[in-house]
C-alpha cells in the first residue's frame, strides 16, 4: 500500500480500549486531505469523533449509521455478502465508510484525497479493531 499508514500499538487490556478507538480516529484524521473521522455504533452512538466544527456530529453520525445499516440489510435481503468498504464522492469531497465489529468508521476527505491511501488506512483500522475486540466481546 502506498501513502501514509496507521501506526498503532495493539492494546488488548480492556481498560485502554476507549483510548484505543480515539487513537484510531486521530490517526485517520491525520492522513493527508482528511477533514474528519469518526467511529459510530450501529445505533448511531458516537464512540469517537474528530470532525470540523461546521459539522454537527450527532446528525452526521445518525446518517452514517443508518447508511451503514442500509448497506448491510440490503445485502442480507439480496442474499449477498455484506459490504466491507464504501466510498461516496461529491463535488467538494469524498466520504468513506467501513464496517467493523463495533460499528462504522467514517472518513470525510477533500476531493484531492489519495483514495487508495484512505482505503488502506481504513482496512488497517478495521483490522486493529478486529484484533483488539475478541469476536464475542462486542457482539455479545
Amino acid at each position, binding site marked *: 500500500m*502506498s*501513502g501514509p499508514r496507521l501506526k498503532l500499538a495493539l492494546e488488548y487490556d*480492556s481498560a485502554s*480500549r*476507549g483510548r484505543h478507538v480515539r487513537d484510531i480516529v486521530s490517526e485517520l484524521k491525520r492522513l493527508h486531505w482528511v477533514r474528519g473521522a469518526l467511529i459510530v*455504533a*450501529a*445505533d*448511531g*452512538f458516537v*464512540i469517537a469523533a474528530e470532525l470540523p466544527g*461546521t*459539522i*454537527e456530529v*450527532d*446528525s*452526521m*453520525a*445518525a*446518517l452514517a*449509521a*443508518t*447508511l451503514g*445499516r*442500509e*448497506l*448491510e*440489510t*440490503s445485502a442480507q*435481503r*439480496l442474499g*449477498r*455478502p455484506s*459490504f*466491507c*468498504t*464504501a466510498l*461516496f464522492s*461529491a*463535488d*467538494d*469531497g*469524498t*466520504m468513506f465508510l467501513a464496517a467493523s*465489529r*463495533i*460499528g462504522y468508521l467514517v472518513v*470525510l476527505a477533500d*476531493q484531492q*484525497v*489519495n*483514495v*487508495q*491511501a484512505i482505503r488502506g488506512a481504513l482496512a488497517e483500522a478495521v483490522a486493529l479493531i478486529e484484533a483488539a*475486540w475478541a469476536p*464475542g*466481546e*462486542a*457482539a*455479545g
Partner: protein
Amino acid sequence: MTILRGLWTARGGREPLTVADALRRAEQRRREGRYAEAGALVARALELDPDNLHAHLLAAYLHVARRAPAPAREEFRWVLGHDANHARALLGLARIALEEGDAHECRDLLRRALRFYPEFPEAAALLEAVRTREAAPRPAASAPAPPRVERLRLPGTGRALIIGRADGGLIASQPVADDAKDVSEALARTLGLAAAALGRAGLGPLHRAIVEDDHDAVFTRTDGDLVVSLALPRATDPTQGLLDVNRLWSATLHELGLAAGPPAAAPSSTPADTPVARTRRVI
C-alpha cells in the same frame, strides 16, 4: 430482560452493584464498543429494577449496536409504553422501520419525536433524508422505452449492470435477472442516504460511489435522477472501474436520448501518470 439475560452473561464476578453503578459502567463499556460487557451490566440493573426506563433504553441501543433489530424493537416499545413521547425511543423505532423498508412508518415516528422535541438533530437529519427520498422523481405515467441495453457493452469482467432512477425504478439490467428490481431499489435507498450524509457534511451532491464486499466492487454514477451501476470483481483497479462506469454512463445517456452525439468511448486519456493521480481524476 429475559432476552438480555439470554444474550449476555455477566462476566467478572457478581459483586454488589447499585442500579446507578451498573448503568454508569454499562454506558462506559458502550462508549468503548464493549457491548457484551455493557449488556451484562444492563441485565444486572434490570434484575435489581425491572422497570428502569434508562436500562430498557440502553438495552435497546445495545441490541441495535449488535445488529439485532427484533429485541431492540421490543425494548423501544417497552420504553414508549411507559413514556409515549420518548423521543429517543421514537428515533430508535424509526431507524428500525427504515431498515425494514418502511419509510412511511419511519417518517411518522420521526415527526412524532420532533413534535415534542423540535431541536432533535438526529431525528431532523433522518427526516430530511427520508423526505429527500420521497421527493425523488417518480416514474412518468408513460415511461420511456428501455434503452437498447444490449448495445451497452459490459467490460469483459463485468458481472452486472443496473440502470435505474433515483426513486429506485428499474430501467434496464444486464444480464436480465429476477432480483434486478430489488437491487435497483436498494441502490436508490443507499444513494439517498449517502447524498443526505454528504449534504450534511457540506460536500455537495453525490456523483459516484464504490461499494465493496468480499466478492464484488460495485461502481456507480448518478446525477440525482439517473443511476448507472456496474458490478466488477473486487480486485478491479478503482481507476479502471470508474472509467468503465463513466463509459457506460455516457452510453446510457445516449441510448436514453439525454445526450447529443455518439456514446462516449472509454476515455483514452489515461496517460502514463500514477494510479493515484488517475483515481483522483476520474472520481
